[in-house]
C-alpha cells in the first residue's frame, strides 16, 4: 500500500468534481461540503449511467436464460465479477462472491465458517478498533459455540502493535478478523504482517477492507488474506453491493449460507446438491444492476489512477491535519502518520451533536456519534466524536471553509 513516487499525475479536481453531480448543490444556501465519505461515497455519472443503461437496455434475470437480454445481463454481471477478480488480483473468479455489503460478508463467514469450525474453548481474535459489523457476528457465534472473543488493544495513538498481536495468539486461536483501515480514526493496520504471523500458526484471517478499498489498490494474493470483504457503496458504487473474497480452499469447505435459486444443482424434497463456487454462496436473484455498477465504479477509479488518488489524498491529509490541529480546544482521536484522511475529533466543552447539527447550516456534512465503533470511542474516553472523512473529490478550499465554519460553530457553543 505504498505510493509509487514516480508517474504521479496531479489530479484535475475541478474536472473530477464535474463527474459527481451531487456535489454541485447548495445546502441551506451554502455550497455542499461533503465530508462523510467514510459513511458512504458519492457516485460518478459513469456509474449512474451504467445503472440507467442496465434498466433501459439489458434488464433480465441472469443465468440459464436462452435469450438475448438474459445473455446481455449475464455477461455484464459475470463480466463484473471478472473485472473485480482482476482489480483485487484474486487467483480465481470463483473466489469473488457478491454480497450486500461488508456486514453480510462478515456474517457469511462467521456463520458458515464459524458454525462449522468453532468449538468450546476456542478463541477468535479481533482488534479494539473494529466496526460493530466485525464485532457482533463473532461475539454471537462465540456465545453460541462457547468460544471466546479476544481483543487486541489499541494504544493512545490509535495503533495496534504487532508484537502484542503475536503474543495474543495461542493454540486456542482459531480465527482472526481485523479491520484494514479504521473507520473511526483512519489508522491503517499492518495486515500483511499480521497475516504472515497468523499463517505461521495456521490461523485463517479475514480482513474488513471497507475503508481501505476506497483509498488503496488491494492485492489479496500479496496480502495473502484468506478472506477480504468491503462494501460497494463506500467505493463510489451502488447501494446494496459488496464483495466477499475468500480463498477457494476455505470457500469449498464451508457450507452454504443462504439457500435458494442459483446455488442449487439438484433438488428433491429429500435431498439437495449444491452448485459450485461462486454460486454456492449466491442464493436467489442477485442485485444485478448493483454488481455491474460496482465494476463500473472501479473502472472510474482506475481511469483516474490509484497512485494519483493516493498522492493527492496524502497531500489533502497533511494539509487538513495541520489546519485541524490549529482549532482551539480540538482533540483529534488517533495520531498515526499511516492513515487515510479521516479526522475524528472532539472539542473541549462542546458536544459532537451540537457541532454536527450547526455545521449542517453551513453546508457541511460530517458524521457525529460513535461511528458504529462504541468500544473504540470508549477506549478514547468519549461516547461520541465528530468525524470528517475526505475523498479525492474534496479540496483544500473545502478544508479551509470547513475550518471557518467549525470555528464559527464552536464560538457559538462556548
Amino acid at each position, binding site marked *: 500500500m505504498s505510493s509509487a513516487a514516480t508517474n504521479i499525475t496531479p489530479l484535475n479536481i475541478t474536472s473530477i468534481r464535474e463527474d459527481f453531480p451531487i456535489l454541485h448543490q447548495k445546502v*441551506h444556501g451554502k455550497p455542499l461540503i461533503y465530508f462523510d465519505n467514510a459513511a458512504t461515497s458519492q457516485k460518478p455519472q459513469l456509474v449512474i449511467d451504467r445503472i440507467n443503461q442496465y434498466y433501459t437496455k439489458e434488464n433480465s434475470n441472469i443465468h440459464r436464460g436462452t435469450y438475448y437480454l438474459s445473455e446481455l445481463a449475464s455477461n455484464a454481471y459475470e463480466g463484473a465479477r471478472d473485472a473485480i477478480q482482476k482489480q483485487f488480483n484474486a487467483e480465481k473468479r470463483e473466489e469473488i462472491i457478491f454480497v450486500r455489503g461488508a456486514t453480510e460478508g462478515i456474517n457469511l463467514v462467521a456463520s458458515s465458517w464459524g458454525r462449522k469450525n468453532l468449538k468450546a474453548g476456542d478463541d477468535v481474535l479481533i482488534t479494539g478498533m473494529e466496526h460493530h459489523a466485525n464485532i457482533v457476528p463473532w461475539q454471537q457465534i462465540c456465545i453460541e459455540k462457547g468460544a471466546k472473543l479476544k481483543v487486541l488493544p489499541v494504544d493512545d495513538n490509535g495503533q495496534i502493535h504487532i508484537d502484542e498481536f503475536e503474543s495474543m495468539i495461542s493454540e486456542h486461536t482459531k480465527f482472526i478478523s481485523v479491520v484494514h483501515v479504521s473507520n473511526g480514526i483512519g489508522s491503517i493496520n499492518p495486515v500483511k504482517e499480521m497475516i504472515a504471523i497468523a499463517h505461521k500458526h495456521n490461523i485463517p484471517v479475514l480482513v474488513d477492507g471497507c475503508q481501505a478499498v476506497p483509498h488503496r489498490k488491494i492485492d489479496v494474493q500479496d496480502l495473502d488474506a484468506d478472506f477480504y470483504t468491503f462494501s460497494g457503496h463506500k467505493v463510489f458504487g451502488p447501494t446494496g453491493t459488496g464483495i466477499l473474497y475468500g480463498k477457494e480452499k476455505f470457500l469449498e469447505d464451508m457450507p452454504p449460507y443462504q439457500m435458494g435459486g442459483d446455488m442449487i444443482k439438484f433438488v428433491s424434497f429429500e435431498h439437495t446438491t449444491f452448485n459450485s463456487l461462486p454460486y454456492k454462496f449466491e442464493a436467489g436473484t442477485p442485485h444485478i444492476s448493483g454488481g455491474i455498477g460496482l465494476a463500473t465504479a472501479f473502472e472510474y477509479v482506475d481511469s483516474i489512477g490509484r497512485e494519483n488518488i493516493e498522492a493527492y489524498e496524502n497531500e489533502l491529509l497533511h494539509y487538513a491535519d495541520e489546519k485541524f490541529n490549529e482549532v482551539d480546544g480540538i482533540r483529534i482521536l488517533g495520531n498515526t502518520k499511516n492513515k487515510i484522511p479521516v479526522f475524528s475529533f472532539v472539542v473541549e466543552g*462542546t*458536544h*459532537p*451533536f*451540537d457541532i*454536527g*447539527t*450547526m455545521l*449542517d*447550516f453551513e453546508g457541511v456534512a460530517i458524521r*457525529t*456519534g460513535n461511528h458504529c465503533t462504541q468500544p473504540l470511542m470508549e477506549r478514547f474516553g468519549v461516547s*461520541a466524536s465528530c468525524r470528517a472523512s475526505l475523498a479525492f473529490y474534496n479540496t483544500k478550499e473545502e478544508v479551509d471553509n470547513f475550518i471557518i465554519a467549525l470555528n*464559527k460553530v464552536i464560538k*457559538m*457553543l462556548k
Partner: protein
Amino acid sequence: MKIGKMTIQETEDEIVEEFEMFGDWSEKFEHIIALGKKLPSFPAELQLEENKVRGCQSNVWLTTDLRDGKIHLEGDSDALIVKGLVALVLKVYSDHTPDEIINTPLTFIQRLGLSASLSPTRSNGLDSMIKKIKFYALAYKAKMNS
C-alpha cells in the same frame, strides 16, 4: 406576555413567534443555546439510568411528578442544543394536566424552521423524551382515575 398560565397551544405559538424575529439559522441556534445554558443541569444524584432517555446521538434526562393534578417536568441533556429544546419542551408541557398533555401534540419544533435538523431520525433523544412524557401522562391519568 400574557398573565397567568397559558395553554400548551398558546405557549407553542408564543415560542414560534419569538423565533420568527430571528434572521438566520445562527440567531435561532444562539437563542436555543442560551436557553440550554440557562436551564439548570440535573444534580448528579438524578442523572440516573432510570431517568435517562438514551438517544443515539445525545442523551436526555427526564423526571416527572404530579403536583396538584398537574405534571411537573424537569429535564436535561448532554448536548446543548438538545438541552435548549428540552427547556422549550418543559416550558410548553410542564405543569399541565395529564389530559392537556395527552390531547395536545407538540408542533413547535417543526414550526421553528429548523425541522430537518431536529427531526426524529436524528435520534438525539428528544423524540423519545416526548414519547415518554405522553406515556407518563397516560399513567398518571390512569392512577388519578383509579
